[in-house]
């Protein structure tokens, strides 16, 4: 006789979803910006990427701290005599701490080019752009990946124990990182920059959006593969997947994650923005809308996966 008590996890909610989302997005922003700096010498994108990653990481860390039930002990993550270096929580703490600092130094190197006295004093940091760019890229990808491993290693929740979980989180982080440019950076730069910037902007936007459509398509396949595997998996995995496709998370999943977060942005990009080989206020706005939809969908994706977590406790 097998008896189980299916308990839905309720302790990781919006705060952790927000943190996983910000960590993933921030994680891929620096690698993208560093790529453009190396290839085109694009300092604007370098500065924007570094700054965006730093701000997002600080916000993510704030959410993480808010979620801690005993924040007074947070330093134990560094000073505990019994520190557990094989826990993803510990490994993640070190990765995100290092990434936040290195991304900050990377951003500061670019800011020193601004004609603002405080930043000009940081000119010596320019020489660090190369090493910090490489290091931050490695740490950033690690940040995005670890958010998946963190869930995959939580043994109680069988739905999260899927090998595809880190892959999905990395794919989602990449699409967020690509979209962060169109959603946040491009509208600001469009307001302030010259014709010279606009010419580069078209090329970059088209490259980012083209890659983003592939990424979103891949994410869609991954997501359905994971749901399909779960529907044929253990009883708890079946119940988690059912919550997403037909349970109380179905509105968030179908409308928020699939439609708003993947299908509509793909339609906007394929149908409109990818066909426009010039830059105007309207195109920047439409691209920004598509970007924000992807970002919102990715936040909802993380919340839906967390909320669908079920622990099947054996009673006999």
């Amino acid at each position, binding site marked *: 006789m097998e*008896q189980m*008590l299916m308990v839905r996890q309720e302790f990781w909610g919006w705060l952790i979803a927000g943190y996983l989302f910000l960590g993933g997005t921030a994680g891929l922003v620096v690698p993208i910006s560093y790529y453009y700096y190396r290839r085109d010498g694009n300092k604007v994108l370098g500065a924007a990427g570094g700054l965006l990653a730093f701000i997002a990481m600080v916000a993510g860390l704030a959410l993480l701290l808010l979620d801690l*039930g005993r924040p007074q002990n947070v330093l134990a993550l560094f000073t*505990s005599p019994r*520190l557990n270096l094989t826990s993803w929580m510990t490994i993640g703490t070190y990765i995100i701490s290092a990434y936040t600092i290195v991304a900050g130094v990377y951003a500061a190197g670019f800011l020193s080019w601004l004609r603002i006295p405080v930043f000009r004093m940081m000119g010596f940091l320019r020489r660090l752009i190369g090493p910090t760019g490489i290091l931050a890229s490695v740490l950033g990808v690690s940040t995005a990946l670890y958010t998946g491993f963190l869930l995959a*290693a*939580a043994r109680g929740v069988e739905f999260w124990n899927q090998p595809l979980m880190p892959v999905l989180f990395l794919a989602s982080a990449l699409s967020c990182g690509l979209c962060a440019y169109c959603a946040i950076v491009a509208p600001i730069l469009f307001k302030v920059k010259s014709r010279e910037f606009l010419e580069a902007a078209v090329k970059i936007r088209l490259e980012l959006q083209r890659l983003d459509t592939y990424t979103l398509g891949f994410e869609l396949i991954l997501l359905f593969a994971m749901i399909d595997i779960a529907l044929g998996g253990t009883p708890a995995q079946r119940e988690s997947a059912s919550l997403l496709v037909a349970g109380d998370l179905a509105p968030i999943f179908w409308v928020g994650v699939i439609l708003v977060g993947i299908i509509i942005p793909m339609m906007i990009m394929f149908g409109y923005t990818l066909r426009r080989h010039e830059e105007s206020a309207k195109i920047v706005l439409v691209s920004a809308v598509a970007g924000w939809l992807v970002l919102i969908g990715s936040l909802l994706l993380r919340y839906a996966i967390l909320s669908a977590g079920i622990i099947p*406790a054996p009673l006999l």
Partner: protein
Amino acid sequence: MVRYGFVIDLRSCIGCGACVAACSEENTPQLKTISPDAEVPLGGRRDIIIVEKGLFPAIARIPLHHTCMHCEDAPCTHVCPTGATFKTEDGIVLIDYALCIGCKYCVEACPYNARYVNEALGGPDKCTMCVHRVRKGLRPACETACPTGSIIWGDLDDPNSEASRKAARAIPIGAQLGTKPKVFVIPPA
């Protein structure tokens, strides 16, 4: 080596919930989670879930026990970042609140869902096997309160203890998970 564990004899358990009440009284009086029925939300260190077995009219109501297994290979100890969750030499899984940051990773990692978040502590809470009583030579409150003697606590490594003798004929709860749980049940007839 001393290795403490429980044997629960479901042949004589009547599902009265005295163990749950005694546990709550002893350890978490602020929670008031006396829930002998599955309909009552969970939220304490120990619970009784009554399940029905068989087809009408041959139905049996079986009280099942939901608590920490004090696994020898405990998933909670593997994920705890600061080592706040640890296992004593005599096999009791405990939380050191001087180190716990309240990240709740252990709650998500326990396949028995034996942990919950105690708002008063801001962190996870679980069965301590009444370690404060055990260290004084007393026995856990749940065992003491059981009117039918269905909860047997003791040293599983001592061949003469009642617990180890009964454990030999009992099955570990959820043994298929491979965490080497130390709570055994003797199934109802």
